[in-house]
Protein backbone atom coordinates (compact mmCIF):
# COMPACT_ATOMS: atom_id res chain seq x y z
CA UNK A 1 0.00 0.00 0.00
CA UNK A 2 1.07 3.58 -0.58
CA UNK A 3 2.18 5.85 2.26
CA UNK A 4 2.23 3.17 4.91
CA UNK A 5 2.86 4.94 8.21
CA UNK A 6 2.78 1.76 10.26
CA UNK A 7 3.59 -1.76 9.16
CA UNK A 8 2.89 -4.77 11.33
CA UNK A 9 4.95 -7.75 10.20
CA UNK A 10 4.00 -11.19 11.51
CA UNK A 11 3.20 -9.61 14.81
CA UNK A 12 2.39 -11.95 17.70
CA UNK A 13 1.44 -11.05 21.21
CA UNK A 14 1.10 -13.27 24.27
CA UNK A 15 -0.31 -12.59 27.71
CA UNK A 16 1.44 -15.39 29.58
CA UNK A 17 0.44 -18.55 27.73
CA UNK A 18 -2.49 -16.83 26.01
CA UNK A 19 -1.70 -16.17 22.35
CA UNK A 20 -3.64 -12.94 21.80
CA UNK A 21 -2.44 -11.74 18.40
CA UNK A 22 -1.52 -14.27 15.76
CA UNK A 23 0.78 -13.36 12.87
CA UNK A 24 -0.84 -10.02 12.23
CA UNK A 25 0.53 -8.29 9.15
CA UNK A 26 -1.01 -5.01 8.06
CA UNK A 27 -0.12 -1.59 6.77
CA UNK A 28 -1.75 1.51 8.16
CA UNK A 29 -1.94 4.35 5.68
CA UNK A 30 -0.82 7.85 6.62
CA UNK A 31 -3.50 10.52 7.01
CA UNK A 32 -6.31 8.04 6.84
CA UNK A 33 -8.65 6.72 9.48
CA UNK A 34 -8.33 3.00 10.02
CA UNK A 35 -11.12 1.36 11.98
CA UNK A 36 -10.56 -1.84 13.90
CA UNK A 37 -13.62 -3.97 14.54
CA UNK A 38 -14.20 -7.42 15.98
CA UNK A 39 -15.93 -9.21 18.83
CA UNK A 40 -14.81 -8.69 22.41
CA UNK A 41 -11.56 -10.46 23.14
CA UNK A 42 -10.52 -10.63 19.48
CA UNK A 43 -7.30 -8.72 20.15
CA UNK A 44 -8.23 -5.38 18.59
CA UNK A 45 -7.39 -3.30 21.66
CA UNK A 46 -4.22 -5.31 22.22
CA UNK A 47 -3.20 -4.55 18.66
CA UNK A 48 -3.94 -0.86 19.16
CA UNK A 49 -1.96 -0.76 22.37
CA UNK A 50 0.90 -2.58 20.71
CA UNK A 51 1.39 0.36 18.38
CA UNK A 52 2.65 2.62 21.16
CA UNK A 53 3.90 -0.18 23.41
CA UNK A 54 1.25 0.48 26.02
CA UNK A 55 1.22 -3.25 26.68
CA UNK A 56 4.77 -2.99 28.04
CA UNK A 57 3.35 -1.98 31.39
CA UNK A 58 1.65 -5.37 31.78
CA UNK A 59 3.82 -8.09 33.25
CA UNK A 60 4.34 -11.49 31.65
CA UNK A 61 3.80 -10.46 28.06
CA UNK A 62 5.77 -11.62 25.05
CA UNK A 63 6.05 -10.09 21.62
CA UNK A 64 7.21 -11.62 18.34
CA UNK A 65 7.45 -9.99 14.95
CA UNK A 66 7.73 -6.30 14.23
CA UNK A 67 5.76 -3.11 14.15
CA UNK A 68 7.45 -0.56 11.96
CA UNK A 69 6.76 3.10 12.48
CA UNK A 70 8.12 5.07 9.53
CA UNK A 71 10.21 2.01 8.77
CA UNK A 72 11.69 1.64 12.27
CA UNK A 73 10.78 -1.31 14.47
CA UNK A 74 9.28 0.11 17.65
CA UNK A 75 10.16 -3.13 19.47
CA UNK A 76 13.83 -2.65 18.73
CA UNK A 77 15.54 -2.56 22.17
CA UNK A 78 17.24 0.67 21.21
CA UNK A 79 13.97 2.51 20.67
CA UNK A 80 12.99 5.07 23.30
CA UNK A 81 9.52 4.16 24.54
CA UNK A 82 8.80 7.69 25.75
CA UNK A 83 9.64 8.98 22.31
CA UNK A 84 7.34 6.41 20.69
CA UNK A 85 4.45 7.42 22.94
CA UNK A 86 5.02 11.08 22.15
CA UNK A 87 4.84 10.21 18.48
CA UNK A 88 1.86 7.91 18.96
CA UNK A 89 -0.83 9.49 21.12
CA UNK A 90 -3.70 7.62 22.65
CA UNK A 91 -7.26 8.42 23.62
CA UNK A 92 -9.22 5.98 25.75
CA UNK A 93 -12.80 4.83 26.05
CA UNK A 94 -13.39 6.70 29.26
CA UNK A 95 -12.18 10.27 29.28
CA UNK A 96 -9.45 10.59 31.88
CA UNK A 97 -8.59 14.24 32.45
CA UNK A 98 -6.21 15.01 35.29
CA UNK A 99 -7.67 16.72 38.38
CA UNK A 100 -6.28 20.01 37.15
CA UNK A 101 -7.47 23.03 35.25
CA UNK A 102 -8.44 22.77 31.59
CA UNK A 103 -5.31 24.72 30.70
CA UNK A 104 -2.99 22.57 32.80
CA UNK A 105 -4.41 19.38 31.36
CA UNK A 106 -3.43 20.42 27.85
CA UNK A 107 -0.12 21.93 28.97
CA UNK A 108 0.81 18.81 30.93
CA UNK A 109 2.56 16.93 28.15
CA UNK A 110 4.58 19.99 27.18
CA UNK A 111 5.71 20.65 30.72
CA UNK A 112 6.83 17.09 31.38
CA UNK A 113 8.74 17.29 28.14
CA UNK A 114 10.69 20.15 29.74
CA UNK A 115 9.12 23.06 27.91
CA UNK A 116 9.04 26.15 30.12
CA UNK A 117 8.37 29.00 27.69
CA UNK A 118 5.04 30.41 28.92
CA UNK A 119 4.06 31.99 25.61
CA UNK A 120 4.90 28.87 23.67
CA UNK A 121 2.79 26.79 26.06
CA UNK A 122 -0.10 29.26 25.84
CA UNK A 123 -0.04 29.20 22.07
CA UNK A 124 0.16 25.43 21.90
CA UNK A 125 -2.69 24.98 24.39
CA UNK A 126 -4.88 27.29 22.33
CA UNK A 127 -3.95 25.56 19.09
CA UNK A 128 -4.58 22.11 20.55
CA UNK A 129 -7.95 23.12 21.98
CA UNK A 130 -8.88 24.61 18.62
CA UNK A 131 -7.78 21.45 16.80
CA UNK A 132 -9.86 19.42 19.24
CA UNK A 133 -12.88 21.66 18.48
CA UNK A 134 -13.14 22.65 22.14
CA UNK A 135 -11.64 26.15 22.20
CA UNK A 136 -14.90 28.00 21.60
CA UNK A 137 -16.53 26.22 24.53
CA UNK A 138 -13.73 26.69 27.09
CA UNK A 139 -11.72 29.78 26.13
CA UNK A 140 -13.34 31.87 28.90
CA UNK A 141 -12.79 29.30 31.62
CA UNK A 142 -9.39 27.79 31.02
CA UNK A 143 -8.56 27.88 34.71
CA UNK A 144 -11.65 25.93 35.72
CA UNK A 145 -11.25 22.35 36.81
CA UNK A 146 -11.47 19.89 33.90
CA UNK A 147 -14.04 17.84 35.81
CA UNK A 148 -16.54 20.67 35.36
CA UNK A 149 -16.74 19.83 31.67
CA UNK A 150 -19.37 17.49 30.24
CA UNK A 151 -18.38 13.94 29.26
CA UNK A 152 -18.07 14.85 25.59
CA UNK A 153 -16.03 17.95 26.40
CA UNK A 154 -13.75 15.94 28.69
CA UNK A 155 -13.11 13.50 25.87
CA UNK A 156 -12.23 16.34 23.49
CA UNK A 157 -10.00 17.78 26.22
CA UNK A 158 -8.16 14.46 26.34
CA UNK A 159 -7.79 14.65 22.57
CA UNK A 160 -6.43 18.22 22.93
CA UNK A 161 -4.00 16.99 25.59
CA UNK A 162 -2.81 14.31 23.19
CA UNK A 163 -2.49 16.77 20.30
CA UNK A 164 -0.47 19.25 22.38
CA UNK A 165 2.71 17.17 22.10
CA UNK A 166 2.22 16.99 18.31
CA UNK A 167 1.97 13.25 17.76
CA UNK A 168 1.87 11.85 14.24
CA UNK A 169 -0.48 9.02 15.05
CA UNK A 170 -3.62 8.98 17.16
CA UNK A 171 -4.81 5.72 18.64
CA UNK A 172 -8.39 5.81 19.84
CA UNK A 173 -9.91 3.01 21.85
CA UNK A 174 -13.69 3.37 21.61
CA UNK A 175 -13.43 7.12 22.14
CA UNK A 176 -17.17 7.76 21.85
CA UNK A 177 -18.69 4.65 23.38
CA UNK A 178 -19.55 6.41 26.65
CA UNK A 179 -20.94 9.52 24.98
CA UNK A 180 -24.43 10.58 23.93
CA UNK A 181 -25.26 10.89 20.20
CA UNK A 182 -24.50 14.62 20.01
CA UNK A 183 -21.14 14.30 21.73
CA UNK A 184 -20.42 11.23 19.59
CA UNK A 185 -21.13 13.20 16.45
CA UNK A 186 -18.72 15.92 17.58
CA UNK A 187 -15.96 13.36 18.15
CA UNK A 188 -16.65 11.81 14.74
CA UNK A 189 -16.54 15.22 13.04
CA UNK A 190 -13.32 15.93 14.87
CA UNK A 191 -11.76 12.67 13.69
CA UNK A 192 -12.72 13.62 10.17
CA UNK A 193 -10.98 16.98 10.52
CA UNK A 194 -7.90 15.58 12.24
CA UNK A 195 -7.04 13.05 9.59
CA UNK A 196 -5.45 15.63 7.32
CA UNK A 197 -2.75 16.07 9.98
CA UNK A 198 -2.67 12.71 11.72
CA UNK A 199 -2.85 9.03 11.01
CA UNK A 200 -5.74 7.74 13.06
CA UNK A 201 -6.52 4.23 14.23
CA UNK A 202 -9.77 3.71 16.04
CA UNK A 203 -11.19 0.68 17.78
CA UNK A 204 -14.96 0.69 17.81
CA UNK A 205 -17.78 -1.68 18.62
CA UNK A 206 -20.19 0.48 16.69
CA UNK A 207 -20.40 -0.80 13.11
CA UNK A 208 -22.14 2.31 11.84
CA UNK A 209 -19.45 4.45 13.41
CA UNK A 210 -16.72 2.41 11.72
CA UNK A 211 -18.61 2.73 8.44
CA UNK A 212 -19.03 6.48 8.85
CA UNK A 213 -15.59 7.57 9.90
CA UNK A 214 -12.97 5.11 8.75
CA UNK A 215 -11.34 4.93 5.33
CA UNK A 216 -10.03 1.43 5.95
CA UNK A 217 -11.45 -1.24 8.19
CA UNK A 218 -9.68 -4.18 9.78
CA UNK A 219 -11.72 -7.08 11.12
CA UNK A 220 -10.09 -9.12 13.87
CA UNK A 221 -11.30 -12.40 15.23
CA UNK A 222 -9.67 -14.77 17.72
CA UNK A 223 -6.43 -12.82 17.45
CA UNK A 224 -6.23 -12.98 13.68
CA UNK A 225 -6.64 -10.20 11.18
CA UNK A 226 -9.42 -11.79 9.13
CA UNK A 227 -10.05 -9.07 6.58
CA UNK A 228 -8.60 -5.66 5.95
CA UNK A 229 -9.84 -3.47 3.13
CA UNK A 230 -11.36 -0.17 2.14
CA UNK A 231 -14.28 0.54 4.45
CA UNK A 232 -16.56 0.89 1.43
CA UNK A 233 -15.69 -2.68 0.45
CA UNK A 234 -15.99 -4.17 3.93
CA UNK A 235 -19.43 -2.66 4.45
CA UNK A 236 -20.92 -3.33 1.04
CA UNK A 237 -19.17 -6.49 -0.08
CA UNK A 238 -16.85 -8.12 2.43
CA UNK A 239 -14.82 -10.88 0.82
CA UNK A 240 -15.18 -13.31 3.71
CA UNK A 241 -18.46 -14.72 4.93
CA UNK A 242 -17.39 -14.50 8.55
CA UNK A 243 -16.80 -10.76 8.16
CA UNK A 244 -20.29 -10.33 6.72
CA UNK A 245 -21.76 -12.45 9.50
CA UNK A 246 -20.07 -10.28 12.10
CA UNK A 247 -20.88 -6.86 10.68
CA UNK A 248 -24.50 -7.78 10.00
CA UNK A 249 -24.97 -9.20 13.48
CA UNK A 250 -25.46 -12.83 12.45
CA UNK A 251 -22.38 -13.86 14.31
CA UNK A 252 -22.39 -15.52 17.71
Amino acid at each position, binding site marked *: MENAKIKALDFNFYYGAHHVLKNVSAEVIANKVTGIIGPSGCGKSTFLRSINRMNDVISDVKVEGKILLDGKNIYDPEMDVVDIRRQVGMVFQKSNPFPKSIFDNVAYGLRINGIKDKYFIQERVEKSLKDAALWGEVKDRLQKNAFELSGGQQQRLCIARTLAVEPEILLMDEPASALDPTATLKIEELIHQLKSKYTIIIVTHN*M*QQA*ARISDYTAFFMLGELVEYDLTSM*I*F*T*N*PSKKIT*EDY*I*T*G*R*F*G
Partner: protein
Amino acid sequence: MQRHFDEELKELNQEILKMGILAEESIQRSVEALKNRDKKMAEAVINEDARVDQLELDIDEKCIDLIARYQPIAGDLRFIAIGMKLNAELERIADIAVDIAQRVLEIADKPQLKPLIDIPKLTTIAQNMVKMSVDAFLKKDVKLAKEVILSDSDADQLRNLIQRELIEDYMAKDGSTAHRAIQYLLVARFLERICDHATNIAEDVIYMVHAEVVRHHPEKL
Protein backbone atom coordinates in the same frame (compact mmCIF):
# COMPACT_ATOMS: atom_id res chain seq x y z
CA MET B 1 -27.60 -16.43 15.39
CA GLN B 2 -31.26 -15.95 14.37
CA ARG B 3 -32.00 -12.27 13.88
CA HIS B 4 -35.39 -10.63 14.16
CA PHE B 5 -34.20 -8.64 11.14
CA ASP B 6 -34.27 -11.85 9.05
CA GLU B 7 -37.99 -12.18 9.74
CA GLU B 8 -38.51 -8.65 8.47
CA LEU B 9 -36.44 -9.37 5.36
CA LYS B 10 -38.51 -12.49 4.75
CA GLU B 11 -41.68 -10.38 4.90
CA LEU B 12 -40.17 -7.96 2.39
CA ASN B 13 -39.34 -10.91 0.15
CA GLN B 14 -42.98 -12.05 0.30
CA GLU B 15 -44.27 -8.58 -0.58
CA ILE B 16 -41.94 -8.38 -3.57
CA LEU B 17 -43.06 -11.84 -4.66
CA LYS B 18 -46.65 -10.62 -4.49
CA MET B 19 -45.72 -7.58 -6.57
CA GLY B 20 -44.08 -9.86 -9.14
CA ILE B 21 -47.17 -12.06 -9.37
CA LEU B 22 -49.47 -9.06 -9.79
CA ALA B 23 -47.27 -7.56 -12.53
CA GLU B 24 -47.08 -10.86 -14.35
CA GLU B 25 -50.85 -11.33 -14.15
CA SER B 26 -51.43 -7.86 -15.54
CA ILE B 27 -49.32 -8.63 -18.60
CA GLN B 28 -51.07 -11.97 -19.11
CA ARG B 29 -54.55 -10.48 -18.82
CA SER B 30 -53.86 -7.41 -20.95
CA VAL B 31 -52.67 -9.56 -23.85
CA GLU B 32 -55.52 -12.00 -23.27
CA ALA B 33 -57.87 -9.02 -23.60
CA LEU B 34 -56.11 -8.03 -26.82
CA LYS B 35 -56.41 -11.51 -28.30
CA ASN B 36 -60.09 -11.86 -27.38
CA ARG B 37 -60.96 -8.19 -27.98
CA ASP B 38 -62.30 -8.27 -24.44
CA LYS B 39 -62.99 -4.72 -23.26
CA LYS B 40 -64.20 -5.89 -19.86
CA MET B 41 -60.94 -7.61 -19.15
CA ALA B 42 -58.98 -4.60 -20.40
CA GLU B 43 -60.93 -2.39 -18.02
CA ALA B 44 -60.25 -4.79 -15.17
CA VAL B 45 -56.49 -4.56 -15.84
CA ILE B 46 -56.72 -0.77 -15.77
CA ASN B 47 -58.77 -0.70 -12.57
CA GLU B 48 -56.66 -3.23 -10.72
CA ASP B 49 -53.50 -1.22 -11.26
CA ALA B 50 -54.41 0.70 -8.10
CA ARG B 51 -53.59 -2.45 -6.11
CA VAL B 52 -50.12 -2.59 -7.64
CA ASP B 53 -49.61 1.10 -6.93
CA GLN B 54 -50.60 0.65 -3.30
CA LEU B 55 -48.31 -2.35 -2.93
CA GLU B 56 -45.47 -0.32 -4.43
CA LEU B 57 -45.99 2.36 -1.77
CA ASP B 58 -46.15 -0.26 0.98
CA ILE B 59 -42.93 -1.93 -0.13
CA ASP B 60 -41.12 1.39 -0.39
CA GLU B 61 -42.27 2.31 3.07
CA LYS B 62 -41.15 -1.04 4.43
CA CYS B 63 -37.69 -0.63 2.86
CA ILE B 64 -37.24 2.89 4.23
CA ASP B 65 -38.39 1.69 7.63
CA LEU B 66 -35.90 -1.21 7.61
CA ILE B 67 -33.06 1.11 6.60
CA ALA B 68 -33.95 3.59 9.33
CA ARG B 69 -34.32 1.00 12.07
CA TYR B 70 -31.56 -1.47 11.22
CA GLN B 71 -29.02 0.56 9.24
CA PRO B 72 -28.29 -2.49 7.12
CA ILE B 73 -24.88 -3.12 5.62
CA ALA B 74 -23.24 -5.53 3.18
CA GLY B 75 -25.61 -8.22 1.82
CA ASP B 76 -28.55 -6.92 3.87
CA LEU B 77 -28.11 -3.46 2.41
CA ARG B 78 -27.82 -4.75 -1.14
CA PHE B 79 -30.97 -6.83 -0.67
CA ILE B 80 -33.04 -3.87 0.52
CA ALA B 81 -31.59 -1.39 -1.98
CA ILE B 82 -32.24 -3.78 -4.86
CA GLY B 83 -35.65 -4.65 -3.40
CA MET B 84 -36.56 -0.99 -3.76
CA LYS B 85 -35.36 -0.88 -7.35
CA LEU B 86 -37.19 -4.09 -8.17
CA ASN B 87 -40.32 -2.62 -6.68
CA ALA B 88 -40.11 0.36 -9.05
CA GLU B 89 -39.38 -1.85 -12.07
CA LEU B 90 -42.36 -4.12 -11.31
CA GLU B 91 -44.68 -1.18 -10.83
CA ARG B 92 -43.52 0.14 -14.20
CA ILE B 93 -44.19 -3.26 -15.77
CA ALA B 94 -47.76 -3.23 -14.41
CA ASP B 95 -48.19 0.30 -15.80
CA ILE B 96 -47.16 -0.96 -19.22
CA ALA B 97 -49.80 -3.70 -18.96
CA VAL B 98 -52.28 -0.84 -18.42
CA ASP B 99 -50.93 0.83 -21.57
CA ILE B 100 -51.61 -2.40 -23.47
CA ALA B 101 -55.14 -2.60 -22.00
CA GLN B 102 -55.78 0.95 -23.21
CA ARG B 103 -54.78 -0.08 -26.74
CA VAL B 104 -57.35 -2.88 -26.47
CA LEU B 105 -60.09 -0.35 -25.68
CA GLU B 106 -58.97 1.58 -28.73
CA ILE B 107 -59.37 -1.29 -31.22
CA ALA B 108 -61.78 -3.80 -29.65
CA ASP B 109 -64.74 -2.55 -31.64
CA LYS B 110 -62.89 -2.32 -34.93
CA PRO B 111 -62.59 -5.21 -37.38
CA GLN B 112 -59.74 -7.65 -36.65
CA LEU B 113 -56.62 -6.65 -38.58
CA LYS B 114 -54.93 -10.05 -38.54
CA PRO B 115 -54.72 -13.16 -36.43
CA LEU B 116 -52.27 -12.59 -33.61
CA ILE B 117 -49.31 -14.99 -33.70
CA ASP B 118 -46.13 -13.15 -32.89
CA ILE B 119 -47.54 -10.81 -30.25
CA PRO B 120 -48.60 -13.77 -28.04
CA LYS B 121 -45.10 -15.21 -28.60
CA LEU B 122 -43.56 -11.94 -27.47
CA THR B 123 -45.94 -11.94 -24.51
CA THR B 124 -44.72 -15.38 -23.48
CA ILE B 125 -41.12 -14.17 -23.64
CA ALA B 126 -41.97 -11.06 -21.61
CA GLN B 127 -43.90 -13.02 -19.00
CA ASN B 128 -41.15 -15.60 -18.66
CA MET B 129 -38.51 -12.92 -18.34
CA VAL B 130 -40.46 -11.17 -15.58
CA LYS B 131 -41.11 -14.43 -13.76
CA MET B 132 -37.51 -15.59 -14.08
CA SER B 133 -36.10 -12.24 -12.97
CA VAL B 134 -38.29 -12.19 -9.85
CA ASP B 135 -37.40 -15.84 -9.17
CA ALA B 136 -33.72 -15.00 -9.58
CA PHE B 137 -34.17 -12.28 -6.96
CA LEU B 138 -36.03 -14.52 -4.54
CA LYS B 139 -33.57 -17.40 -4.94
CA LYS B 140 -30.50 -15.16 -5.31
CA ASP B 141 -29.84 -17.12 -8.52
CA VAL B 142 -27.25 -15.43 -10.73
CA LYS B 143 -27.42 -18.13 -13.41
CA LEU B 144 -31.13 -17.52 -13.86
CA ALA B 145 -30.55 -13.76 -13.91
CA LYS B 146 -28.02 -14.18 -16.71
CA GLU B 147 -30.53 -16.25 -18.71
CA VAL B 148 -32.99 -13.38 -18.45
CA ILE B 149 -30.43 -10.89 -19.72
CA LEU B 150 -29.55 -13.14 -22.65
CA SER B 151 -33.23 -13.59 -23.62
CA ASP B 152 -33.60 -9.87 -24.16
CA SER B 153 -32.19 -10.07 -27.69
CA ASP B 154 -34.90 -12.63 -28.63
CA ALA B 155 -37.49 -10.10 -27.55
CA ASP B 156 -35.82 -7.35 -29.58
CA GLN B 157 -35.73 -9.53 -32.70
CA LEU B 158 -39.35 -10.53 -32.39
CA ARG B 159 -40.40 -6.92 -31.85
CA ASN B 160 -38.51 -5.95 -35.05
CA LEU B 161 -40.22 -8.76 -36.95
CA ILE B 162 -43.66 -7.65 -35.77
CA GLN B 163 -42.87 -4.05 -36.62
CA ARG B 164 -41.66 -4.91 -40.12
CA GLU B 165 -44.71 -7.03 -40.86
CA LEU B 166 -47.15 -4.38 -39.66
CA ILE B 167 -45.47 -1.64 -41.65
CA GLU B 168 -44.71 -3.53 -44.85
CA ASP B 169 -47.70 -5.87 -45.10
CA TYR B 170 -50.39 -3.55 -43.77
CA MET B 171 -49.65 0.14 -43.35
CA ALA B 172 -47.66 0.52 -46.59
CA LYS B 173 -50.18 -1.43 -48.62
CA ASP B 174 -53.45 -0.15 -47.19
CA GLY B 175 -53.56 3.18 -45.37
CA SER B 176 -56.92 2.33 -43.80
CA THR B 177 -55.20 -0.28 -41.59
CA ALA B 178 -52.84 2.30 -40.10
CA HIS B 179 -54.83 3.08 -36.98
CA ARG B 180 -55.16 -0.58 -35.96
CA ALA B 181 -51.63 -1.47 -37.07
CA ILE B 182 -50.22 1.34 -34.93
CA GLN B 183 -52.02 -0.04 -31.88
CA TYR B 184 -50.40 -3.45 -32.43
CA LEU B 185 -47.09 -1.76 -33.07
CA LEU B 186 -47.40 0.00 -29.74
CA VAL B 187 -48.30 -3.25 -28.01
CA ALA B 188 -45.18 -4.90 -29.43
CA ARG B 189 -43.15 -1.93 -28.29
CA PHE B 190 -44.71 -2.13 -24.80
CA LEU B 191 -43.96 -5.84 -24.51
CA GLU B 192 -40.40 -5.24 -25.53
CA ARG B 193 -40.13 -2.53 -22.85
CA ILE B 194 -41.36 -5.04 -20.28
CA CYS B 195 -38.47 -7.29 -21.30
CA ASP B 196 -36.10 -4.36 -20.77
CA HIS B 197 -37.43 -3.89 -17.24
CA ALA B 198 -37.01 -7.61 -16.56
CA THR B 199 -33.44 -7.28 -17.81
CA ASN B 200 -32.85 -4.39 -15.39
CA ILE B 201 -34.14 -6.57 -12.55
CA ALA B 202 -31.83 -9.41 -13.58
CA GLU B 203 -28.83 -7.06 -13.70
CA ASP B 204 -29.71 -5.80 -10.23
CA VAL B 205 -29.95 -9.37 -8.94
CA ILE B 206 -26.36 -9.98 -10.05
CA TYR B 207 -25.31 -6.88 -8.16
CA MET B 208 -27.28 -7.98 -5.13
CA VAL B 209 -25.64 -11.41 -5.03
CA HIS B 210 -22.07 -10.64 -6.12
CA ALA B 211 -21.88 -6.85 -5.67
CA GLU B 212 -20.80 -6.82 -9.31
CA VAL B 213 -22.19 -4.19 -11.65
CA VAL B 214 -23.08 -5.68 -15.04
CA ARG B 215 -25.50 -2.92 -16.00
CA HIS B 216 -24.05 -1.04 -18.99
CA HIS B 217 -21.19 -3.57 -18.98
CA PRO B 218 -22.35 -6.47 -21.16
CA GLU B 219 -18.76 -7.73 -21.41
CA LYS B 220 -18.93 -8.72 -17.73
CA LEU B 221 -21.66 -11.27 -18.33
